[in-house]
């Protein structure tokens, strides 16, 4: 009588263990999928700023919802993000630049860091004019 290469009980144990391990992996993937649902809508990336005429030449207007600042100068409209490039606090607009209250970073009027832990300039944001004469700010 030949001895079996794999006894029945060991085969069944192996099958059960692999089914459970496999099920565990699937369950983990399902759990991750379950917990990844986002209940809040994503932040908007387009902001309607209204008619271009409301922003006169040489004005620097804060747009708090973004947060960003809209600059109207000789070369047209541009925008700078007010999110500090260090760790994300909203920088305060000052007479000749921007200052971050959290860790003391300072930026000049073009957003370039002149002091403090921030190492990269404030992000430039795209501003476009629609056919109706309105300005739209894009953060992406």
């Amino acid at each position, binding site marked *: 009588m030949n*001895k079996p290469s*794999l006894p029945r*009980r060991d*085969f069944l144990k192996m099958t059960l263990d692999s*089914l459970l391990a496999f099920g565990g992996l699937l369950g983990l993937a399902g*759990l991750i999928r*379950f917990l990844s*649902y986002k*209940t809040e809508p*994503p932040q908007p990336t387009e902001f309607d700023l209204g008619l271009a005429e409301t922003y006169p030449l040489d004005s620097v207007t804060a747009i708090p919802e973004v947060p960003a600042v809209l600059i109207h100068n000789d070369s047209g409209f541009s925008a700078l993000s007010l999110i500090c490039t260090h760790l994300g606090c909203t920088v305060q607009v000052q007479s000749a630049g921007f200052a971050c209250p959290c860790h003391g970073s300072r930026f000049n009027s073009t957003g370039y860091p002149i002091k403090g832990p921030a190492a990269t300039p404030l992000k430039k944001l795209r501003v476009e004019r629609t056919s109706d004469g309105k300005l739209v700010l894009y953060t992406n």
Partner: protein
Amino acid sequence: MNPHSSNSPKASPNQSGLAIGLFLVCLGAMFILAAWWAYDVVKTSTAPQTTPTLAAPTPASNAGRLAQPILSSPQNPTQLDQGSLVYWGICMACHGDRGQGLTNEWRAVYGEDQNCWASRCHSGNHPPDGFIIPRDNLPHAVTGAGSLTTYTTAQQLYDYIVVTMPWWKPGSLTPAKGWAVTAYVLKLNGTLPQGVALDATDASAIKVHNPVPTSQNDQIGEIVLAALLGLVALVLILQANSKRKAVLVGSRQATLSGEPAPARPRPNFLLHLHPPSIPAEQARWSYTLGTGGLAIFLFMVLLVTGILEMFYYIPLPDQATISIQTIARLVPYGGLIRNLHYWGAQALVLVLFIHLLRITWTGAYKKPRRFNYLLGLALLMLTLALDFTGYILRWDQGTSWALVVGTNLIKAIPGLGNQLYEFMVGGAQLGSAALIRFYSWHTFGLTLAMIAGVVWHLFRIRRDGGIAVPPARLRRSEERISRVELVRREMLLMTAAAFALVLLSIFWPAPITPPLTNTSVDLTNARAPWFFLWVQQLLKFGNPFLLGIVVPLLILAILIVIPYLFPKPADSELGRWFPKGGRMVQILIALLTLLLIGLTIWAILPEPG
């Protein structure tokens, strides 16, 4: 005799080949299931989640922009089909074919209304005198940057549309058309979940600005789960023959007499939780029906699914139902988790009732198990309290009266009533405080007490000698089963129950009704949860304190004194159903059961006339 000898059953070469073949088939099935599920997951998670941009119009395609939309199903129009028609016929003239609003570009394309400020807007469906669009309040865009910002949920958008639109004849949309066009606007924004027929039931959960992936089919994953459970159950059944019901009396006596125990592998934690062996009589399915183990399993299911639901449930009156709708409709596998929780809870009440019948009809309440019987009754009360508090957490139109009646019943208690009411409700009337309290009781207070009670109940089972059977000298057979076999039987029961529960949850969703609002709710059918229907029927007869508090407490009191006041079966009669010595208790329990079932059926019969 060493019961754990590793003598493998000898199999012939044919059986080996069969075994390998069966294993390969299982492996293949696993991979097919995994591939199918993984494909579906990847497809839904990499689908584009940005708002779809409709093709930019070219001069040549302008004519197409004004044409009647093509329906996806002309013979049987879907809600979106109807919505596209409503939008095209009523809204498009002012809001643009892509929802862009009355832009200069759109006015040029639309043509005939271009000069409507001067000549008044006329067209086939406008008022005969025409109307003037105010120059400083042009029709807004309904898609794109800055649109629909004042609406968070589909319900809010619908409420605005049906009351104020169309602008030249507000309130003229029927609810069906209103929902259809709301769904269409959401579709334009890419935020309408797939397969949803928009109406009041879940419109408060659907967010106007939440982009959704293009396909949401959880059923594949759920069926994979059921299939896996079936495979595991199959393997557990097959294992029965390879683990013999060893006769262990010899080795047990050796240990009792002080000789060193025979060498055997040290058990893992799961095995360690069980005695090394139990009399085979204690483990007969036909005796216990597995109700105790089933109850433990269902409780564990409720714990896990409950914790998962806590990630999304919000215990505030205006958000509770919405958060449940979010779980049931929008969260991946949320519907499965919620349905498992609901059906698990209802099954637990039923299983506990059958467990009570088993205990009382087999005389298992006898000394030394009397205290454990009382523990069991306490656990039953805790379970009903957990079920009721969980029911209330829905805070929707279907459950509001249950809360009102339940808490006012407490008020009916003379003397303490008002204070107890305020304790339960957290104030003088029902509101956010009541919801938070019920939530805290349900997720924490009652659950902790239940866990402590279950652990104590299980400890007492071990200490009192396990499941009730005659003592060893009176027993009919000396057969015992090892802890390995016992655990296998428990795992088999749990897997089979999980399989049934998952199938139930896939095909039969838990109930939910529209959220409670401040306006009075018109309910022609106010029903208690099913396990309290008998109380609701009793309350139809008169005094609420006597019928709603005293009578149920009397029934509980009768149950409590059963082990102390009534004749009990002899020790030799234990371990089987309807022993002669316990006749009085059996008849009493049968009468109580008939009473409860009778009242429940009476409660759901239609009112005469």
